[in-house]
């Protein structure tokens, strides 16, 4: 099938061409009136126009027609094969006066075929471009989905993606999170009556998803909250909107229901449109689930932080409250054991000492609890200064030598002379070393040695059991390393790391016998972390332990450096 217009003012030619083309599969028109030509072109949109060279102002006419037609092929009937150069650029083929009817017919047929092939190619190209654009939209929408953990944003990305790929006139998105809400994204303004109808339609759509089952949320059209976004508020939709083509899909949140979406468009949706719509509506499901999980994690974190704070406050308050009655008990025991109320016999004195010892122990536990709660709340005060580790070792040795002696142990300090200074809080280091040495005293049987050693070492030379490797890897540069070695009960390799956990006193009848809060080592670990140092141990069951701690040489801890600069 092809529509052919022949423009000529020669009757014999018109007659000849009519005879050639006035048969199937052609529809043939002729014209010799310039004004009528444009009318025919406009109404019939011919596939081919054949121009006779004899027509007046033919060049002007060709130019004019070229500007009003898009896909029409132009064929020029020449006189003796003469062609003017500037005509060739508008013309697809040529005929001559001498050509036989068959040749004219076949030339036109070939041109018609070429034209149809080009049209098909152009259609295919257009479809390809559309598909490519849609793929791009799907890709960018997926990227947006992957980059967000905010449900509101995810729904907006979904609607944006649908707009870009389907150019809808209106979407009605029902979201059931917290309070159900209907999101209307519309090209034009929506009247109150139309809005009521849309709400009702959405609720019916929603209920239809669950057939006979009870829907997960009670949603009523009258009370449904609406958030409306209108692109061109100057125009209004009417009820003819319901005659538009539409598509509807549920939106799930992982395996659960989240909402549903209905989309309206004046022109009909294609099957590709339907696929694209389903894809985008399904794609949002997983990100929505991730966003929900993220939200839950954030909420849980907040709760945990609050609990942690409450716990610290609780420990702090309880510790303070425990000190008052403890003071009264201690004072009474001190008065009695000091003989201020008269003589006490030997067994009475023994039980008084027992009570005093346990008061001391209880006071130690309370102090440990308070220290830990202060460290965890970031309220521990440090007084950093240049100092030498010898002073710490000397202090601890002299204060604990009596305790060691009472237990029949030798407390020995083997120090390397002239160790460089460190920038540290001497009181806190005394606390750490006191803890390590008193632990060694507690766990070492009579007649054995406890040795405190100190030396300098490069971080790369530090050798620790595997479980402490992570802590040691953070160290860089030179360190003072202090080691407390005992010949006590030791710790099994699997329990080494646990020794530094809060309240994780290693399960052992001896450890229960010697008591303690089990907080000494966790506190020591935190105190050393505040010094940019580390603590670790090597041990073997029944062969003793070596506890080490390392403090950086000449390194001002970051927090203190800031204060120093300010000062």
């Amino acid at each position, binding site marked *: 099938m092809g529509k052919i217009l022949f423009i000529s003012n020669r009757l014999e030619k018109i007659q000849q061409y009519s005879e050639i083309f006035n048969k199937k599969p052609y529809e043939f028109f002729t014209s010799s009136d310039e004004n009528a030509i444009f009318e025919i072109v406009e109404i019939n949109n011919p596939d081919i126009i054949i121009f006779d060279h004899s027509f007046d102002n033919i060049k002007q006419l060709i130019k004019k027609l070229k500007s009003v037609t898009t896909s029409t092929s132009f064929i020029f009937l020449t006189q003796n094969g003469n062609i003017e150069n500037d005509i060739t650029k508008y013309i697809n083929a040529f005929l001559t006066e001498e050509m036989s009817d068959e040749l004219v017919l076949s030339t036109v047929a070939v041109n018609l075929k070429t034209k149809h092939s080009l049209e098909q190619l152009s259609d295919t190209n257009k479809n390809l471009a559309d598909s490519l654009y849609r793929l791009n939209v799907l890709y960018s929408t997926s990227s947006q989905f992957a980059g967000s953990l905010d449900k509101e944003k995810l729904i907006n990305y979904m609607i944006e993606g649908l707009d870009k790929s389907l150019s809808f006139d209106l979407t009605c998105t029902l979201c059931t999170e917290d309070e159900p809400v209907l999101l209307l994204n519309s090209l034009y303004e929506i009247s109150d009556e139309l809005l009521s109808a849309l709400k009702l339609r959405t609720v019916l759509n929603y209920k239809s998803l669950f057939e006979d089952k009870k829907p997960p949320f009670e949603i009523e059209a009258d009370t449904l909250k609406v958030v409306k976004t209108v692109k061109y508020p100057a125009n209004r939709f009417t009820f003819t909107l319901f005659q538009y083509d539409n598509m509807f899909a549920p939106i799930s949140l992982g395996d659960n229901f989240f909402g549903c979406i209905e989309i309206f468009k004046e022109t009909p949706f294609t099957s590709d449109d339907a696929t694209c719509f389903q894809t985008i509506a399904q794609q949002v499901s997983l990100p929505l689930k991730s966003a929900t999980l993220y939200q839950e994690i954030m909420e849980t974190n907040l709760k945990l932080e609050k609990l942690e704070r409450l716990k610290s406050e609780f420990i702090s308050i309880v510790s*303070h*409250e425990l*000190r*008052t*009655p*403890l*003071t*009264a008990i*201690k*004072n*009474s025991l*001190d*008065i009695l054991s000091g003989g*201020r109320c008269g003589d006490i016999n030997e067994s009475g004195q023994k039980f008084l000492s027992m009570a005093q010892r346990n*008061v001391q122990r209880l*006071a130690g536990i309370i102090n440990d609890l*308070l220290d830990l709660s*202060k460290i965890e709340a970031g*309220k521990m*005060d440090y007084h950093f200064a240049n100092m030498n580790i010898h002073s710490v070792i000397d202090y601890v040795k002299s204060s604990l030598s009596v305790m060691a002696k009472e237990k029949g142990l030798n407390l020995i300090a083997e120090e390397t002379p002239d160790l460089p200074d460190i920038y540290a809080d001497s009181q806190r280091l005394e606390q750490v070393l006191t803890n390590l040495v008193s632990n060694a005293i507690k766990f070492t049987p009579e007649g054995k040695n406890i040795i405190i050693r100190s030396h300098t070492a490069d971080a790369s030379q530090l050798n620790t059991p595997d479980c402490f490797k992570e802590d040691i890897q953070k160290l860089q540069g030179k360190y003072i390393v202090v080691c407390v070695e005992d010949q006590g009960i030791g710790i099994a390799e699997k329990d080494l790391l646990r020794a530094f956990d809060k309240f994780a006193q290693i399960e052992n009848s001896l450890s229960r016998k010697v008591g303690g809060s089990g907080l000494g080592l966790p506190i020591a670990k935190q105190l050393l972390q505040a010094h940019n140092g580390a603590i670790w141990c090597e041990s073997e069951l029944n062969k003793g332990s070596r506890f080490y701690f390392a403090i950086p040489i000449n390194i001002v801890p970051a927090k203190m450096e800031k204060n120093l600069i300010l000062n």
Partner: protein
Amino acid sequence: MKKILIVDDEQDIVESLKFVLEAADYICYCAYNGEDGLKLAKEIMPDIIILDVMMPKINGYKISRLLKYDNKYKNIPILMITARSQEEDKLIGEETGADEYITKPFDLDDVVKIVNRYLGQ
């Protein structure tokens, strides 16, 4: 004999302090809340005050401040005793003019030593 005022709402602690300080030849006056403590301080003009911080009606910080800002009483040494031991509390104690600061549980002998140092016994 020198006079000591002990102000603490914990009667047991007051009792034990009174016991050792009387044994060390001091006269002890006791008050069990801040209001009574302040009144008694002005009444008897003690040579030293042992003051608890957390008390009903008027707390130890306030009593210390009121006395230390009054020319008539500012020279009376104040030994502040508290169950709180955080550094910031210590700073508040110093700002309010306490001369000494010890934390519960304390050693009774330490209290006697501090009192002796201030009262020259």
